[in-house]
């Protein structure tokens, strides 16, 4: 229903890619996160967002200004090439922001037909989850990748269905 008001100079027409050499991320003595683009500007409390969090999480990191305006300063194609301190801080920021767990194994599954109570082993530990309307809450991304959202709004990432052990696949087969 919303109608886009044409906002003319809101965004430049071209993406800007930042070179790893240009960018330095550090903490100021009072603990504030900061990023400098060499010879250009300094960004206070920058945010680092993945442009393709599912399909290409390790590339295309968007370096952004702090909220609420929060415009993109530039994209980092290969943030791993930043200097060590910067890299660690970016990694920490990404770890802080992206909380979706990756499913490793299904420990148990109680099939209640319209719902299922599962114990998931994930990269973040073991958790008991309730799945509801399972078939409506599953996204198939192709190549065996599946995202399942539980009844409480948490999402679990199955990177490769055939990467799971046979038992987990059988259990999953009961509900998918």
């Amino acid at each position: 229903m919303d109608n886009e008001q044409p906002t003319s100079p809101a965004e430049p027409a071209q993406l800007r890619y930042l070179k790893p050499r240009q960018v330095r991320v550090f903490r100021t003595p009072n603990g504030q996160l900061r990023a400098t683009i060499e010879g250009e500007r300094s960004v206070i409390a920058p945010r680092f967002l993945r442009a393709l969090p599912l399909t290409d999480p390790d590339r295309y990191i968007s370096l952004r200004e702090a909220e609420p305006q929060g415009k993109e300063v530039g994209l980092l194609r290969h943030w791993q090439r930043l200097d060590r301190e910067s890299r660690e801080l970016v990694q920490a920021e990404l770890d802080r922001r992206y909380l979706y767990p990756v499913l490793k194994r299904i420990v148990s599954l109680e099939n209640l037909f319209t719902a299922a109570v599962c114990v998931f082993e994930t990269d973040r530990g073991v958790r008991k989850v309730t799945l509801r309307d399972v078939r409506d809450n599953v996204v198939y991304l192709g190549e065996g990748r599946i995202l399942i959202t539980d009844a409480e709004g948490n999402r679990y990432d199955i990177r490769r269905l055939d990467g799971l052990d046979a038992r987990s696949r059988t259990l999953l087969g009961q509900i998918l």
Partner: protein
Amino acid sequence: MGNYVGGAAPAAGALPQHGSRAAAPRRAAAGRRHRRRGDCLLVNVEVPEEIRQAAAALAPEAELRLAAASDLGADGRYGERWLVLAGERLLVLAPAGTQPRVLVDLPLKEISEVQVENLVGGAMLQAVVDGRKLDVISYSNALAKRFGRVRGQLDAVAKGKPIPEAAEQPDRCPVCGLVLGENTRACPRCMRKGAVLRRLLQYARPYRARLVLVTLLMLGAALFGVAPPYLTKILVDEVLIPRANGYLLGWLVAGLAVTNVLSTLLAVWRSRVAAWVGGRVSFDIRAALYEHLQWLSMRYYDRHPTGTMISRLSQDSGGVQNFMADGLPWIASNLISLVVVTGALLWLNWQLTLLVLIPAPVVSVMGLALWRRMRQAFFRNWRSWGRFHTVVHDTLSRTKIIKAFSQERAEIERFKLRNADLFGTSVFAEQTWATFMPLIGLITSAGSLLVWYFGGRIILGNEGLSVGGLMAFLGLLGMLYGPINVLTQTAQWVTRALTAAERIFEVLDAEALEYNLGQGLTKSVVGEIEFRNVVFGYEKHQPVLKDISFTVERGQMLGLVGKSGVGKSTIINLLCRFYDVDEGEILVDGVSLRELDLAAYRSRLGAVLQDPLLFSGTVAENIAYGKRDASPEEIMAAAKVANAHEFIVNKPDGYDEQVGERGDRLSAGEKQRICIARAILHDPAILILDEATANVDLETENAIQEAIGRLIAGRTTFAIAHRLSTLRNAHHLLVMEDGKIAEYGTHEELSAQQGVYSRLLDIHHKTSLVKAVDG
């Protein structure tokens, strides 16, 4: 949810303010004991002893004012951390044996604000200290609601404001603690499969008498069914082997003929009655389902793709119909013949009978294994159908775009993929079936070999079985394994039907919006609207509207202004009560929207939307959509006011002109005016106007403008405004930014300020210039 009860009568023309009008919240009586500068409620009550002690050690003498557990540890892994407000200190504690680790220790007085940063898959509670945001505690989406309330309370405490009430809403099954879906109250663990079957049979209850008749007919048919083998026995033993009693031959054959005819007649009668009952039951279920679908909230529709809804209505109810009309009677009649035949067999020779029953357990066990496999296979097949429908629906309803981007081939490929998936899953299901069934058949046929061998020995040994007896036995045996085979098919019937029924019940159990809460409308709506501290998000943890308060007086027009995605349409959605607010409330003539009779309220609402939605039917039917009993005079009068009468009468079929599917046979300007006529005829007290920016020629544009001008006169109007003229005409403008009210005032007031509105106006002028130049 904050429930603000009573409160002062809404002040006329109240300006939007943040929080200050947060009305005195109704305090829980328990909280009254220590009311100081803000007493909090404990969010989870059971605080572990070591956490209590640790908090007490850090803040001696201080009372525990708030405590909430997070489900994530400091490292982002699952774990437990406690957010505790002890006296004047905000603490985060991680359990670690008897001595919890202190992760955060902030003096309350340093905190100026408490915020939530939405992360991906969770969120972070942050405290603003010296203008800097400090991370306090993170949590997963599961706790978004809880920490949303914690944030509200802490923020109020930090700012020294009254604390909003925070009762935790139960979203778990009270019996087993299972997390319940947002739109359903039924706990699937406490409601098991037997219950699904029973519930299904409930629908057959009104037709009990017919069901009794069906059962009696089945019993009769079964009894007539065992007569032929018995007659055969007499034929062989008394006539054929002794080569005597020739007079009996004719009678016996006649008897065979009569029993055959009778059992056939009974079977026909039975099937006809059963078909009626089955059809009728699924008719009732479809009716209940469709009716329920109409009353479900928009939130439900947001979450469930239309494709799966359609397949529930058509495929699933079809599955239930098959089961009720064919499956269930079939199973029942076979059960009855099984009992009758077994009885007859035992009567003929009980030792031999026990022998041939040996394969029965094997058959049952195999049936069970099959049951499980088939269920899974059919589930997959059903899912493929759902996705197939989605793709077909997607593409067929977007033909123009596909053609415009010449994506026909890609769409064909996409379809092929779904089609192949459907092919795969149905083949899998059918092949599984095709493999297991003959195996079961093979095992059951082993029984007749046993009869030939052991029965033959009994005859040879002259031990009480005649040749006729053996023939009858073999005949009956055929009738025994038939039902057993069928009963293994029960797996398929029951599986298909129960999964279909489950899915239907799932929808039926989804909670419909409560339409008739409270006392309803005592007087007709005059249209004074107040939004009071409204917080709302389509996803409960992501607020789209953040603490919105404003008032629109009766008959006034409010223009909603802002970039796309700031929440203008959301305000409209809430006003229509397509969704319920998460916090705060909406008052209509001083009464909470939740307490109004929804149907009566909506009947006083009218809308002219940007995308004019018409139903297939005639022009007249579309105009009269909100008032089905309108007379032709009324319809034409409304069309006239809407500047639509002229073009309608010019159509070959005038008001009886078919508008085509979704009104495709009319132009954009025509559709707009029909929608306006519809709203005029409906005569709403509250009008929602989402202006179209559709490119229509100037003359049409003027005609529409004029019609809208006539429509809004005297009605409380919410306009999502794009045209300058509308902005000027509005009594007040509400400029929104990021889910909040950025500015509020008249057009003149706001254009004088150097704010968001004047910026938007600039852009507007520029783009209109561009348009004018582009022509």
